[in-house]
């Protein structure tokens, strides 16, 4: 391939990345799902998808938001089989995504939200890959918190390929963190059980090991994946390690709570339509 052709390809790809990032941004603004990213662009790969994700993050930072952590997704065997991948993916957690338990969350913030119970790691010191080991990761953790991740997709009906979800910030939506910090020294997150209640009923149960064999493996993977791109996990960053159970759809008025053995519980309330009108 001649240098001229490569250059043409790069210019073309950059244009596709820009257009796709803009289309996803419009989906956020209009709160209306859009067509899959790969429709009309079947050649797009995982690297293209992360480039599209990065463009949106740059836009959010420009408008005053801030990266405060990352989420790791596609961490369960079931999800990896469903998506046809053998690797997790990651998305950026922005400051504006964080919600508080007890306070009704406006459902209008989302398009087609689902919730997942997770273990969140809060870092005490930077963690910089590549070459991060389990020992490095454990030493970098300040504490663990129970978390409810609100995932959402800007792609119509969650019709996702791996490229679609990565381009769409790994289907991130919102985060609610519990407030009782637990030291990594006092818990084995791999064997921690999790019970998810939706409107008072048990809808799913699971254990930490459903996440890549252990939620700590998520942290190690993320530090090394970002490290190979020259990105460091910073002190204070929040890392959502991945879903301990299957995701559950939520609607306005729903109440969810996740109980994690050794970590306490965390809840989220979704505003009713009337609460939102008020």
């Amino acid at each position, binding site marked *: 391939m001649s240098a001229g052709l490569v250059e043409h390809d790069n210019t073309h790809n950059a244009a596709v990345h820009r257009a796709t990032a803009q289309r996803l941004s419009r989906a956020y603004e209009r709160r209306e799902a859009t067509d899959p990213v790969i429709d009309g662009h079947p050649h797009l790969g995982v690297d293209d998808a992360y480039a599209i994700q990065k463009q949106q993050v740059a836009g959010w930072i420009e408008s005053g938001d801030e990266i405060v952590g990352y989420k790791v997704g596609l961490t369960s*065997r079931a999800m990896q089989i469903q998506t046809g991948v053998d690797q997790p993916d990651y998305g950026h957690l922005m400051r504006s995504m964080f919600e508080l338990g007890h306070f009704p969350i406006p459902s209008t913030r989302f398009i087609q939200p689902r919730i997942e119970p997770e273990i969140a790691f809060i870092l005490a010191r930077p963690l910089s890959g590549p070459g991060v080991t389990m020992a490095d990761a454990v030493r970098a953790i300040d504490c663990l918190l129970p978390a409810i991740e609100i995932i959402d997709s800007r792609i119509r009906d969650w019709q996702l390929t791996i490229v679609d979800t990565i381009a769409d910030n790994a289907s991130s939506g919102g985060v609610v963190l519990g407030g009782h910090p637990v030291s990594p020294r006092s818990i*084995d997150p*791999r*064997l*921690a*059980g*999790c*019970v998810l209640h939706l409107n008072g009923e*048990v809808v799913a*149960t*699971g*254990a*930490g*090991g*459903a996440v890549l*064999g252990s939620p700590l493996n998520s942290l190690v993977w993320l530090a090394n994946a970002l490290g190979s791109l020259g990105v460091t996990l910073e002190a204070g960053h929040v890392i959502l390690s991945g879903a*301990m*159970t299957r995701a559950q759809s939520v609607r306005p008025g729903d109440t969810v709570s996740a*109980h*994690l*053995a050794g970590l306490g519980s965390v809840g989220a309330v979704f505003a009713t339509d009337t609460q939102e009108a008020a």
Partner: protein
Amino acid sequence: MAGPERSWTSEIVAELLLDAEARRTPTEGIASRWPEFDLDAAYRAQDLAVRLRVARGERIVGVKLGLTSVAKQRQMHVDTPSIAWLTDTMELAPGTAVPTDRLIHPRAEPEIVFVLGSELCGPGVTAARAMQSVASVVGGIEIIDSRFTGFSFTLPDVVADNNSSSRYITGSLQLPPDGLDLALEGCLLEVDGQVVDSATGAAILGNPAHALAFAANELAKRGQALEAGWVVLTGGLTEAVPLHPGSRVAAHFTHLGSIVIKAE
């Protein structure tokens, strides 16, 4: 089966299913051949079959619960669990491989198991009362093996088939129930070293204690009680996974330790 239909009884069903097990040859559903076959007739067949087992020298060592998850109940269009008998020949000693050559199409599922310290007799047993009779809690793996072709059955079918009971193994760690939150007791299921599923005790009717109370109350309807020393398998925490020769299944619990089985 060709020819005129024989007149069905619970005795015939019991013998047919024991025979299917002995010959490792699955049979078609009973309900499709005997339209009047209902749950009462199914439990009669189950009781007759266990009496035949006892007559040939087996000893009843406990009970197991089935259909304890909302998902399985919906699948079978029922809203209560079912109960079945365990005998001493079903227990696998630690380190023993699962003899798949003697089974039809075995599957494994992790369970929370109670060992009773005193008799528990319904009716009217609550979860709190039930837990008072528990001497210890252990982790376990149950091997189920339906005597019906392709694990395809109706509710009366599976009840008559002793809830697909085949083998079980319990962990070596016995914990007193005090201080254990069984709803949050987590379990990781691994096949050949890979996590395939996970759950907690809340998957069993919200708490395995409710399964134990249900067992006592259900047996009371049949004039029976749970006896001291019996084991109670409270129901599959996850979906059952197929067991192939050579496969290794492990259940890792938050507090109840690990149980590993090998199939050969």
